[in-house]
């Protein structure tokens, strides 16, 4: 597919990184900054173009008329919209724009329809949704959804006192008797796609796949709290805080926002009349203790500075048993950050890039490949892919245990017209189903790729 990406900031770069792995796309990137373009063309197999992406002549140089998709992710909402508008007229291509001003967010649907955009992405809003999902279900570290939310992939850590520690998967499934499947186990540096005799250890990070209903049941059975949090404390009063507070308040969660900027606090209080807004410096421990960090059910650090967020979360972990969520914008030392006790990590740019990339995949379906959605787990080392099964697929009509699957591949879930089936060896895939495949291999593009 021919794709133009306008703006090579953090999101643009994330998108390039993810799309380039698939090797199927011809990508042209446009940015005003020569250095950014030099850097990206040195490191990735893409074409670079220096200029204003909203200019018609630049777009024509990028061959917009032959392009299938234009993604505008510059820092400016207006330029992004203008880019898409021109590309739509000149190239008649699909367009995705990043629009993040809360002022526009209420009019998203109108803008999208009027300008003929295929998708509008608001990274802050997307991240806020992700955080709200975590707060609704605090036992999980990370939750991804498939099949329009019917299937969930949840990350949990096996603690010392967990009933699962030192048990084989067969014993675990006998014990919980729920329709769930443990699909990946991360232990230190290694990632396993486990089979029956695999023994879980304390400290393992496991990913389970379950239908949304069953996952609650499963967590209750193993003695985890499945209630959503009652209150939350958010530090930092930016756009993401606004979106998050709005969602949480609608869910009936009490929200307390701490920010050191008086004016911002005032405008937040106007926009969020139900929230408690505290004007204070959260890097001062006293302020947090005074505002009751010790008793709060959850703590979210959303300031604009990653280092501050990390320290706040580390501090919160020492003060509260509740759920802690940390936002990381820029710092790229993933390996080190994951060794800290920071609760759940949120990377807004990666979330936005994931949304866009999954749209690209869906578009690709109409052209050839049939990956419906794809989610990366365990910092990109595991992929969960949703495939649509056609009537000529080689895997239909036979029990799964008879299929000669490649190593490191697991069929995690079958979605039959909305009914979620967690597959067993005897399960049979039918035409019209969608299946979710979990794998440590990358580059699967068709369901037949899972067979030897």
């Amino acid at each position: 597919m021919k794709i133009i990406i306008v703006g090579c900031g953090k999101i643009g770069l994330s998108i390039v990184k993810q799309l380039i792995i698939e090797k199927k796309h011809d990508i042209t990137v446009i940015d005003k900054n020569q250095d950014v373009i030099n850097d990206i063309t040195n490191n990735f197999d893409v074409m670079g173009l220096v200029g204003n992406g909203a200019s018609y002549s630049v777009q024509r140089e990028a061959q917009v008329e032959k392009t299938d998709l234009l993604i505008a992710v510059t820092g400016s909402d207006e330029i992004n919209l203008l880019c898409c508008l021109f590309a739509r007229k000149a190239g008649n291509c699909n367009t995705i724009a990043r629009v993040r001003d809360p002022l526009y967010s209420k009019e998203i649907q109108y803008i999208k329809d009027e300008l003929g955009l295929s998708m509008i992405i608001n990274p802050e809003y997307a991240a806020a949704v992700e955080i709200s999902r975590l707060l609704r279900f605090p036992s999980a570290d990370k939750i991804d959804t498939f099949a329009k939310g019917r299937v969930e992939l949840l990350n949990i850590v096996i603690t010392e006192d967990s009933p699962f520690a030192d048990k084989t998967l067969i014993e675990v499934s006998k014990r919980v008797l729920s329709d769930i499947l443990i699909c990946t186990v991360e232990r230190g540096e290694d990632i396993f796609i486990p089979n029956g005799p695999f023994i879980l250890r304390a400290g393992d990070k496991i990913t389970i796949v379950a239908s949304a209903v069953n996952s609650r049941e499963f967590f209750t059975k193993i003695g985890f709290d499945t209630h959503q949090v009652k209150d939350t404390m958010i530090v930092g009063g930016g756009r993401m805080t606004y979106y998050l507070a709005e969602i949480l308040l609608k869910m009936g969660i009490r929200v307390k926002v701490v920010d050191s900027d008086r004016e911002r606090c005032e405008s937040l209080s106007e926009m969020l009349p139900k929230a408690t807004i505290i004007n204070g410096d959260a890097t001062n421990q006293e302020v947090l203790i005074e505002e009751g960090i010790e008793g709060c059910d959850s703590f979210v650090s959303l300031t604009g500075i990653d280092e501050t967020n990390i320290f706040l979360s580390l501090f919160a972990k020492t003060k509260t048993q509740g759920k802690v969520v940390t936002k990381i914008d820029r710092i790229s030392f993933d390996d080190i950050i994951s060794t800290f006790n920071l609760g759940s990590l949120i990377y807004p740019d990666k979330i936005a890039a994931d949304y866009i990339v999954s749209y690209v995949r869906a578009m690709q379906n109409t052209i050839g490949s049939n990956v419906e959605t794809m989610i990366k787990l365990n910092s990109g080392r595991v992929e969960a892919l949703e495939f649509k099964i056609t009537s000529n697929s080689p895997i239909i009509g036979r029990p799964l245990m008879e299929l000669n699957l490649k190593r490191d591949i697991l069929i995690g879930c079958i979605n039959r017209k909305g009914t979620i089936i967690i597959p067993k060896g005897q399960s049979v895939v039918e035409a019209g189903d969608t299946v979710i495949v979990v794998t440590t291999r990358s580059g699967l593009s068709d369901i037949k790729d899972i067979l030897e």
Partner: protein
Amino acid sequence: MNIAVIIYTLGRVIALEAAFMALPGIVALIYRENVWWAYFLVALLGMLLGLLVSIKKPKNMQFFAKEGFATVGLSWFLMSLVGALPLFISREIPNYIDAVFEMSSGFTTTGATILTSVEDMSHAANFWRCFSHWIGGMGIIVFLLAVLPMAGSVNMHLLRAESPGPVVGKLVPKMKDSSQILYLIYFALTLIQFVSLWIMGMNPYEAICTAVATAGTGGFGIYNDSIASFSTPIKWNVTIFMILFGINFNVYFLLLARKFKAIFKIEEVRAYLGMILLSVIIITLSIFRTYAKFGDALTDAAFQVGSIITTTGFATCDFNEWPSLPKTILIILMLTGACAGSTGGGLKFSRILIGMKAVKQEVNSFIHPRSIKAVEMDDRALDKNVVKSVCVYFVLFALIYFGSVFIVSIDKYDMVTNFTSVLATMNNIGPGLNAVGPSGNFAGFNYLSKIVFIFDMLAGRLELYPILLLFAPPMWKKH
């Protein structure tokens, strides 16, 4: 420095070269020459060695600019060393340094020879010499990227290190597609020339050798008098194709994409064609009295200009005998070379243009000290770094040039020979003036000079840095 990746890539290059080496072996079989075993033996060993080294992908694929430079520099050295083996073990060139000189001259598309009589060589040897021009013309790494692309950053760093010109870009977003388009254009043009030469009366062997040597802008001839004994239409054919191969290949891509307007925007190509026209007119006017027919003078002038400006190095007459004005013009053309992004060598027209514009801007800044003006090319402002790197390139070029002349002057030849022989090798032209003129050769130089020439040819083809960096100790530090 990630040595594992470099060795892995070198393995692929050697395997590829070995595969090409089977072709002269086949030529030897066709002409029933008893040297066929040398080519097949080296090809077989090269394939084995190359595949053995590159069978396992190294774990650490970290690849930065310095690895790119080192890989490309070493590849070309190694290619010349391996390419010289069949000539050496078949005893056609009994001295290994001579053989390496001949093959570096081939791969770098120089066309300078240490052979006093090429007609005594076997058909296989002559084919291999000419065909090495074709391999080297577009670059073996570009070929490698067209057939076996590697992970993301590796590709770009390799291409950047091998491709000539101040700014290296791709034609289309994907490296593999870009390399394939380049080779497709290259192959198609070569094929057209081969067929047309055949129709014009060359035998197939002559036609293919001449076509591949022209395509790479190399200049190895298969006859002692180069192209002189062929008919006038063939001379014009070669002239036109030399000039075509000296044009930036972007032009052909734009032609294929039907963007005719964009072609006229490329200043470099305009300057290049203008320079050819001007030189031909002046040289014709200054030599036509010595010819019986005006047409012959024009043919010779055009051929020599085309041959020198594209750094091919064929000859149809001994321009050593010409008066000094045409000789001076030829020396200027030796310096400028052809367009960036072509198969030709030299400083490249785009560099000369950028350099002259930078001079103009500097002069202007004395008159209007507060004026700010960007250096423009093809209707767009150039990055300051590009202008700077062009200026530095000139300085570096001069340093290496004079350093080489100094070492070569230890030898027994006169000034003109020394100066033009280094220019002819460094800019990958082939013939110079006096002792290394079209009728002369490099056989008489001592081995020290020959090694300097080998270095100059490789440095010139790869635009100095990849070869120069190989000799910088910090490059090889592990961290």
